[in-house]
């Protein structure tokens, strides 16, 4: 039963992954055999389809035909533009109107017909064609390099009237601009023993300029019991600079968790930053051993005021309120308050 669920989950992940791979409008991948699968995404895809291999051939003439190819009077008159592929114009993206542009400006879906970025190569490649260096590897730039980094978002001492705790949240990452592996940990230590700990192994993959899809496995352990989860989520930067991380976890016991976190950096000066933060947990099922009830379970809101001595090292003080809801509140040990307020002292650092 557990296994079937997990297997299904991975089939689902694989599906998501392959759709994103195809959705990447990459001329190199636009071979005819892929065409059928290319319908996964928006109008961009339609344009991309029209620009595959046979267009590559015409392109050198395209460029040369007339400067008018790149000039049009106004983009409202697209339909009548006297240029190039008819198909391209039939598929002009819809989000083309002026209103949309003034709203999201540069995020327009493009004007004029789209180009194949490989059209100018005339079939030559970086590793084939004339004047290639013999037996020497090609120049390799940092775009082909993988980096490794450590990011510690919170390393803090928490003081409330019930308990004193040390909390840690951070990850080690390895990868490039678009694909990274993360080993993430979130640990709460109370009275020298690990109260709760989560270890995630994640793969993140860019799906748009500001958003990544992330999926992986989580092992949860601590005072109460152990749980294993598989996760899929989105993380990224929303308009107006909100840092958002939303993930759905499916547990081996059939439970599910939806966890959404958002934070915002408000610059009081170039180095003094106020960061409000919100974190909501909601479970699909009740799990008494872990003290979790189904439905909205925990709401954390708070702020951290940090001073960036360096962008890489910033101590902070903060205040946080944790509220337990519904059945989760009912499951609290006798005498424990459903609302807990605490002060925080910690620092953020990364390498």
């Amino acid at each position, binding site marked *: 039963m557990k296994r079937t669920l997990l297997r299904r989950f991975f089939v689902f992940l694989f599906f998501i992954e392959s759709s994103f791979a195809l959705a990447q409008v990459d001329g190199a991948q636009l071979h005819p055999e892929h065409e059928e699968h290319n319908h996964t995404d928006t109008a961009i895809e339609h344009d991309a389809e029209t620009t595959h291999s046979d267009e590559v051939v015409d392109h050198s003439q395209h460029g040369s035909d007339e400067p008018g190819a*790149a000039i049009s*009077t106004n983009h409202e008159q697209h339909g009548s533009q006297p240029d190039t592929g008819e198909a391209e114009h039939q598929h002009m993206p819809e989000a083309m109107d002026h209103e949309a542009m003034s709203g999201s*400006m540069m995020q*327009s879906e493009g004007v004029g017909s789209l*180009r194949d970025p490989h059209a100018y190569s005339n079939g*030559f490649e970086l590793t084939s064609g004339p004047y290639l260096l013999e037996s020497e590897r090609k120049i390799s*730039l940092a775009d082909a390099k993988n980096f490794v980094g450590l990011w510690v978002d919170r390393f803090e001492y928490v003081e409330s009237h019930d308990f004193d705790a040390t909390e840690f949240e951070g990850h080690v990452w390895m990868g490039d601009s*678009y694909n990274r592996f993360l080993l993430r940990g979130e640990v709460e230590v109370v009275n020298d023993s690990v109260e709760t700990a989560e270890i995630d192994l994640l793969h993140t993959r860019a799906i748009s300029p500001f958003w990544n899809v992330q999926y992986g496995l989580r092992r949860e352990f601590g005072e109460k019991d152990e749980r294993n989860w598989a996760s899929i989520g989105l993380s990224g930067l929303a308009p107006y*600079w909100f840092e958002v991380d939303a993930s759905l976890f499916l547990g081996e016991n059939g439970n599910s968790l939806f966890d959404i976190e958002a934070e915002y950096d408000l610059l009081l000066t170039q180095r003094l930053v106020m960061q409000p933060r919100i974190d909501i947990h909601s479970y699909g099922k009740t799990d008494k051993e872990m003290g979790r009830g189904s439905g909205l379970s925990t709401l954390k809101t708070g702020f951290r005021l940090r001073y960036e001595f360096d962008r*890489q090292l910033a101590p902070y003080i903060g205040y946080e309120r944790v509220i337990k809801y519904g059945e989760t509140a009912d499951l609290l040990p006798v005498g424990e308050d459903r609302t807990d307020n605490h002060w925080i002292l910690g620092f953020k650092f990364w390498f």
Partner: protein
Amino acid sequence: MQYEKSSRFDPALASPLKSRRRFVQGLIGGGVVGAGFASSGWAQDEQLPFGAGRAQVLSGKTFNLVIEEQPANFTGSPRIATMINGSIPAPTLRWKEGDTVTINVTNRLSQPTSIHWHGIILPFEMDGVPGISFPGIAPGQTFQYRFKLQQSGTYWYHSHSAFQEMTGMYGAIVIEPAEGERIQADREHLIMLSEWTDEDPMYVFQKLKTMGHLYNFNQPTLPALLEDISENGLDAAVTRRDMFNVMRMKPTDLADLSADTLTYLINGVTPAGNNTSLFEKGQRVRLRIVNAAGNTFFDLRIPDLPMTVVQVDGMDVEPVTVDEIRMGAGETYDVLVTPDQDAHTIFAETMDRTGYARGTLATQQGLSAPIPPRRQAQWLSMEDMMGTMSHADAPMGSMDHGGDHAEMSMSNSMQVQARHATTEFGPSTDMRVDFPRTNLDDPGVGLRETDRRVLTLSDLRTLGGAIDQREPEREIELHLTGNMERYSWSIDGLEYGKSTPIHFRYGERLRVHLHNDTMMTHPMHLHGMWSDLEDADGNFLARRHTLPVQPAQRVSFSVTADALGRWAWHCHLLLHMDAGMFREVVVV
């Protein structure tokens, strides 16, 4: 050549809590430390036309250059630099047009190295780009460069391997015209602008991958918003910020690296060290200015002293007199000045306004003139974000173009429309400009509201016009793209590693439109062939090797594909280049 005889090491300076001022200004005696080549000190200035800084001047037809790690200290923290013949800048090479020069470059580093002759027309095997034109120079190896000089003027050379240029490998080249110097001057000086970071450039790069705005300490803050609201009202203040916030862009994203990590140099000397170039009153002085910085645009001026630009990228231009010149990495400018005071400050403020390089033109050593007040960083404008859309739609209220309806409708009908690549719609590209501006008379952000005469691309006229008068047979369009949050830089949304080469047919004349879909200015350098800058109507302006393209701007130029082989074409901001804003060109 000037060396510190003793290391003059002051333990106080090595403290991590060194004062901010010292960091910006650099050490007075900062620079190259260590034993080395024959040094004649400042007095050299009296003996040779060159040598204001620390670089030796080498002339002749055969040259031996040795690349070695050497200690350097610009900020109070000793570091290891990669140097050519033990100096920063490297020796100035004086060549003569028509000569065949031989340069033996010996690598005494532990990694491969290379030297690229920036702007020099030569066979591609001699161009010095490892992995494209030659295998690179392995440790312990000597590579012999040999090529015939077909041009004259001011150029420069630098490593094309990893970030070695940022750690000291750059020097000037001066090629005397075969028929003798056309530009009459009583004296000439090299002004080589550059920068130094105490950090490992690759680590700097990695940090930017983690946090794109790491070095920007000029970001919008809450108090600034409140002040703006009280001065201009809520609407105006919010409107001004709205577009940037929606697009997740910083309006002060003017440079990736700032004075937070960089110390800016003239001829290898910090602002505090005050590199001094001598003249005698009444003399006409030629300054050969090279921007050899890895990542910095400089706005150079000499307060109260107009500069007559006579040469750009080594090519003679119709003289044009200006007060200020914005210089991208890789560009060179020759100017004539006739100083009338005992001392004039050469002031090269960075485009992001966080720091400056400074030197002095003086009648004797030890003199100095006031350092001009620093300017505030300006926000990028609507034009920088939207190109000509800012005229047509003006959704945020047209600021400087309001009221001029005739002109508006005119420019509207002539609007150039971008043709994006299919690959610009993925994670690599955080903005796209649909209607680029083609206004080459724009001095660029931070220089627009000034009474000074600022040189612009439209002021340039190479003497003699285009060599190749043919109309281009075809046109290609390339888009400069990036994503500041991910710190990725590319062309048409594809980094070099994912790209295919651009094919120029041997002998053809073609037109290139470089369209900037980012918020930063990119100095684009095509190796091996000249870029003939044109105005929006296709009229020839100037022959260049490095062309700055402003945000949301389209710059067009023609190329005669007369150089067989594989060539590099890239943004000369080294971090952008290494991030992948780089293409290979195959001429066949």
